[in-house]
């Protein structure tokens, strides 16, 4: 599993906000699921429908408290297509925010088909939450310690 699939959060901090953006007038619709591993089996805990729409941005707040979310997986599936003439590529960002701090960001630049062609780009991934021991320690510092 790549390093970037881990998101370090403060267990004593505020709720986690997830923000999704798509630029260049690209429209996207997605489903985010929070999964929890219980007795060796993944259970669905929360589900969110995210539509970036005219603004190119949408967000939601996880109901689960950060202290109870360690090792949970937030997985998503995104469908996207382009409505603006001549636009073939766009940037997508998924950011986990806690107490105003960006805890984790995934950026990607993708070729997207035209909505008018009746086609969509379907992609997805997931992130695992881990409790941060020291709030001053960044994700990269933590990985340096393990290498």
């Amino acid at each position: 599993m790549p390093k970037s699939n881990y998101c370090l959060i403060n267990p004593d901090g505020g709720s986690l906000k997830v923000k999704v953006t798509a630029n260049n007038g690209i429209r996207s619709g997605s489903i985010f699921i929070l999964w929890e591993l219980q007795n060796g089996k993944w259970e669905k805990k929360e589900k969110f429908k995210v539509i970036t729409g005219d603004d190119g941005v949408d967000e939601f707040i996880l109901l689960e408290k950060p202290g109870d979310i360690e090792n949970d997986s937030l997985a998503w599936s995104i469908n996207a297509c382009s409505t603006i003439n001549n636009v073939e590529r766009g940037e997508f960002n998924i950011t986990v925010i806690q107490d105003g701090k960006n805890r984790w960001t995934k950026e990607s630049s993708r070729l997207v088909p035209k909505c008018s062609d009746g086609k969509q780009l379907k992609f997805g991934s997931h992130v695992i939450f881990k409790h941060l021991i020291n709030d001053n320690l960044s994700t990269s510092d933590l990985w340096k310690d393990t290498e």
Partner: protein
Amino acid sequence: MERYRISCSIFIFLLVLVGYSQDTEQPGDNQDAYSFKLDYNVPESPAFAVLDANPTTIMRASTPQEIITQLASNFLSGNEVSPGLAFDFNPYFTFGGRLKSVKEYRNSYGKRFLANLQLSFATINSMDFPDDLLFSGGIRATLFDSKDLIFDKQLGEDIDNALVPDESDIPGPMNNNDQGTVVDNPALKQAYANAKTRYMEKAGGSLALGYAIAGRAKDNSFKTDSIVTYRHQAWLVGQYDLGKSGMSINAMVMYRYDQTPQTTDNDGLISGIALRKYGKKLILSAEIYHDSMKESIDFGGYAEVYLIPSITLFASLKKETNSITGDEDVLLKPGIKWNFSQAKK
């Protein structure tokens, strides 16, 4: 010559016949979304306009579509029609321009202006200059379009609803489809089919400005001393769609500076109007215009039919004057519009 005229007549008859036979489909029934981009209000190539290679003289003012490659071809046997190629694209996005969102497109006139710029290049082999290659470049800006599809909020909502994954697409806890795949979504096609019906029934206007320059490479040579520019033109065109009747009125005024072997330092105005009738798969058009350089009033007829995916066939009948002999003749100009963005997928 007689054989050519007969071929022309047969071609136009077949064009209209096929167009009308396909035009009886109900809106939304088995309509492919790509037909929306190809058979409706696709503006003419500015670079073809300055070479007189467009099938019509009076141009359209609507916002440009995706990358379109146009061929002016002599796929009929007549030698009078000049083979050529025009390639149109948007410079803003091609050279790295960005747009924050659909909202920015709607609210920022500047961004919308840039997003709808159309840059165009063309070459053509003219029978007027059989040993030379004619080439041109042009730019076209949409100043205003009240029927711009991006302002159709219903279409935006329909697309959003179509994009939300259904229950079968619930991502698993270890979902790792980061590369992504392009898949068909019939609901998107339906959203555009509905938008097309709304578009055709909506009244509204648009305004566009263009400039183009044409040159001649003598003996097909691109050495500096072999290239001469022989024409500049700038134009303003307005369009008003009447709505449910499917009729559209276009008016154009164009300033042209011409330096051909017969006319040195000749300039003047070409102005006129066109009436267009839009069907589902067929566009019929008639135009009349005044050319102050020739002191003549000319007319033309035009038919455009969408037959197969990615390809639109068109043909026009137009009274024209030969630049060398000065003879007047009614010419058929057949051609093809090819949706480049469709073809490369």
